[in-house]
């Protein structure tokens, strides 16, 4: 058993010191009926080679994104992550460290988190950010709960352009957490009027930009309207690379920005782990969920970093905490910070520009395909098309041709005729001209 260093001699010697006749005797407090006399009914131990083979056999049954023309987005995006990022996050001192509760020997993690918080604040155009959340979707519901606390109201207004999973999560928490949700219809046409729906009960308006269908919108008026009614504006961003090209939510008046940070630093990983970004205004800092890293000095007066304002947290406040979360996405946050440090100002801008160029060119190419209507005026690297057939069928047909064409809106918004033929398509810096041509050709064939 390669991970277990005790030898039989060790065990015997240790039991003698303890004064116990056997290891089993140490389990005497467990009710006898529940004490098993031997291993459960599962396979016995296996070496690396064997485990590798078993898992690789499963992995090989999947189509990896890098092996085919790939246009799937809708909340997770396929980007190129520089090799040094993955090397650095695997360094044992980062990978195998715990939450930095002992700051004297965790300045590495802590300084990274301080850099992360600064990066997120800059990207989103907000004052302050926390040290990350599980992912964008859970950050979103935390933002709604925070808005409820701040406004002491309990009605959240969700845009129909919000990612359906994000909306479902808020609805689940509302149902069991005692608040109300008003949700718009799927806003694929970009015509939604949220301002009219804000009232004196509204704690927050939650919009996504670019929205689930890829559309961009200026949120300035919405922010003003929300503020006029005493509500907060929460902006969700699922493609954080977009912030290298478009006006940040903070400049449009957002009170809380939540984002999925996966695009920077993390792979697709079939949906997780990702990293949730959470930023707000200075005045709301003490209502924020999640960890915060702050600057301070040590006993010698040197600058150092610690986790701070933990009086908001569950391990101190118990049932009065702002959230029950006690883990962040430290390693993904580290990957985010390193990747964004490599990009820097010029790299991020250029990356965003490449993404937009790819999507823009793809939209132009698709516009010429019979049976495809591009529903796009303003977008970043993702847009929606209306097909002449149900999108789910088309996607399945293209998958059979080893083209991953995008996400049928119906997968996330079922039982809604209006979205049945809608396909959400993403392009990134990884998308080649050959990929685009394959999609065009594939669609022509399938829609013919």
């Amino acid at each position: 058993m390669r991970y277990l260093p005790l030898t039989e001699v060790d065990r015997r010697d240790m039991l003698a010191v303890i004064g116990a006749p056997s290891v089993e005797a140490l389990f005497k407090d467990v009710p006898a009926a529940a004490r098993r006399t031997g291993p459960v009914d599962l396979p016995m131990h296996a070496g690396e080679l064997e485990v590798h083979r078993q898992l690789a056999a499963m992995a090989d049954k999947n189509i990896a994104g890098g092996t085919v023309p790939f246009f799937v987005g809708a909340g997770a995006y396929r980007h190129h992550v520089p090799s040094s990022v993955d090397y650095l996050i695997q360094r044992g001192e980062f990978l195998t460290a715990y939450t930095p509760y002992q700051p004297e020997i965790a300045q590495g993690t802590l300084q990274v988190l301080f850099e992360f918080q600064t990066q997120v604040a800059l990207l989103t155009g907000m004052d302050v950010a926390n040290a990350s959340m599980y992912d964008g979707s859970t950050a979103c519901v935390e933002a709604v709960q925070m808005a409820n606390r701040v406004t002491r109201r309990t009605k959240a207004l969700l845009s129909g352009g919000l990612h359906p999973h994000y909306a479902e999560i808020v609805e689940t928490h509302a149902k069991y957490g005692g608040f109300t949700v008003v949700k718009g219809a799927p806003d694929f046409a970009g015509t939604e009027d949220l301002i009219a729906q804000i009232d004196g009960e509204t704690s927050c308006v939650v919009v996504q930009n670019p929205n689930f269908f890829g559309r961009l919108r200026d949120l300035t008026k919405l922010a003003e309207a929300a503020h006029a009614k005493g509500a907060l504006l929460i902006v969700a961003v699922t493609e954080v690379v977009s912030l290298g090209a478009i006006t940040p939510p903070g400049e449009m008046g957002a009170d809380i920005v939540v984002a999925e940070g996966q695009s920077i630093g993390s792979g697709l990983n079939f949906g997780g782990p990702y990293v949730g970004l959470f930023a707000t205004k200075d005045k709301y800092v003490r209502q924020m969920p999640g960890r915060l890293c702050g600057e301070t000095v040590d006993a010698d007066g040197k600058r150092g970093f610690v986790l701070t304002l933990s009086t908001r947290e569950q391990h101190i406040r118990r049932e009065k905490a702002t959230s029950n979360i006690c883990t962040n996405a430290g390693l993904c946050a580290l990957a985010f910070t390193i990747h964004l440090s490599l990009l820097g100002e010029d790299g991020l801008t250029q990356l965003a520009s490449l993404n937009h160029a790819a999507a823009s060119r793809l939209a132009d190419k698709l516009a010429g395909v019979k049976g495809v209507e591009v529903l796009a005026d303003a977008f970043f690297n993702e847009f929606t098309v209306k097909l002449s057939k149900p999108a789910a069928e088309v996607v399945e047909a293209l998958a059979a041709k080893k083209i991953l064409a995008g996400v049928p809106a119906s997968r996330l918004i079922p039982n809604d005729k209006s979205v049945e033929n809608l396909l959400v398509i993403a392009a990134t810096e990884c998308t080649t001209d050959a990929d685009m041509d394959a999609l065009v050709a594939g669609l022509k064939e399938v829609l013919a």
Partner: protein
Amino acid sequence: LEEKLIFEQGEAGRCGVDLPAAPKHTAKLGGLARKGGVGLPGLAEPQVVRHYTRLSQKNYGIDSGFFPLGSCTMKHNPRLNERMARLPGFGDIHPLQPVSTVQGALELIDTLAHWLKTLTGMPAVAMSPAAGAHGELCGMVAIKAALEARGEGHRTRVLVPESAHGTNPATAAVIGFTVDPIPATEAGRVDLAAFKAKLGPDVAAIMLTNPNTCGLFEGDIREIADAIHEAGGYFYCDGANFNAIVGRVRPGDLGVDCMHINLHKTFSTPHGGGGPGSGPVVLSERLAAYAPLPWTILKDGKFQVLEQAEGEAKAAFGRLKAFHGQMGMFVRALAYMLSHGADGLWQVSGDAVLNANYILASLKDVMTAPFEGPCMHEALFDDRFLEGTGVSTLDFAKALIDEGYHPMTMYFPLVVHGALLVEPTETEDKQTLDLFIGTLRSLAERAKAGAAEEFHAAPRLTPRRRLDETLAARKPVLRWKRAGDNAMAAE
């Protein structure tokens, strides 16, 4: 050498990536193009690599040395697991790819679920929770959903032992339960009589950690389970300490209704300086129907994902997280399980408990243990042995840092004065334990010999000495600002 912030190292015109020029295209940003800059610093790749290498050198991880952090189960993180999670067939697949193109991924989830169910003796598991606390939420929501389905939504009181993790009461409160604490006995267990006295028609559940946070097994657990069930409530078990019993004792055999499993504790997915975690929740028959979306099921030899509350999943209580859960952690945990197998896991809990008892037995004479052994996978000490020395639990723990160790957990559980909670885990060898025991012994003796000042000054050999946490909280500086920006902000 000090390591400046990246913002203090950056220069305009430098970049750590080479990206080609964007091809010709029509901009379609609808007037939302960013006007100002972002304000990010420019660094070349060598600088970035060196910066984060040097920061890592200021960290302590399991790979650096012994990390006996009680309640946190810091065990060896095998690199095989990292490698497996990076196979393109796992790492480079999108959660919304057609289900036909991710059959292997779903098979992995299904296999992991099978292992979790078998190890816990429970019929169902919800895979999506992102971490332990998220799993708690999942379990408690499932209980709430079950109560509502039974028309007993009025049951809102949740019993939580005083020694519980802070997340237990926090979780209960988030979804509108009220928390009612149960006192502990002198033996460090739930006071059974007090518990029974609190039962009533408004009780929704008990949340119990077992082995508990004192490192002790709740011997009355079957009685507790029976009593809560009889009273119409559910038994939530906090699985944080599952490592003590994995492979030997199945929570399902103890009457548990739901339990979250910290994959990053019991099954060694790396903690990564704060996450990511993964907290699947096993559920009893009584709760299984309410498990959140998505559900992975096998039908006619093909895996399917139920993503809506329809059909078989019609009672699902909703959704807790986008997509399918922490897949990357699933791969690592399954690799760990396959590596150990049923026989290895049996040994895991045995060695974990043996190691803890060895530490307890070896130090009982110079430190003070509040409870009689045997303990489970953690050895708990209180601060009576430091009485009158002028050395606090904190000082004692900090002194360990200079000796090359990560401190144990301090001041938790709250029910013990000045608690020191040591969890060696099964991946440490006897040589390491003996050195550690020798160090603790010598520190205890030095404390008693009047070396308080030395302890107050510890640690001395670290990149930073004790940090001023009060200052940090009083005047929060939570981000870097360009010189001058702070002044502006202060206006």
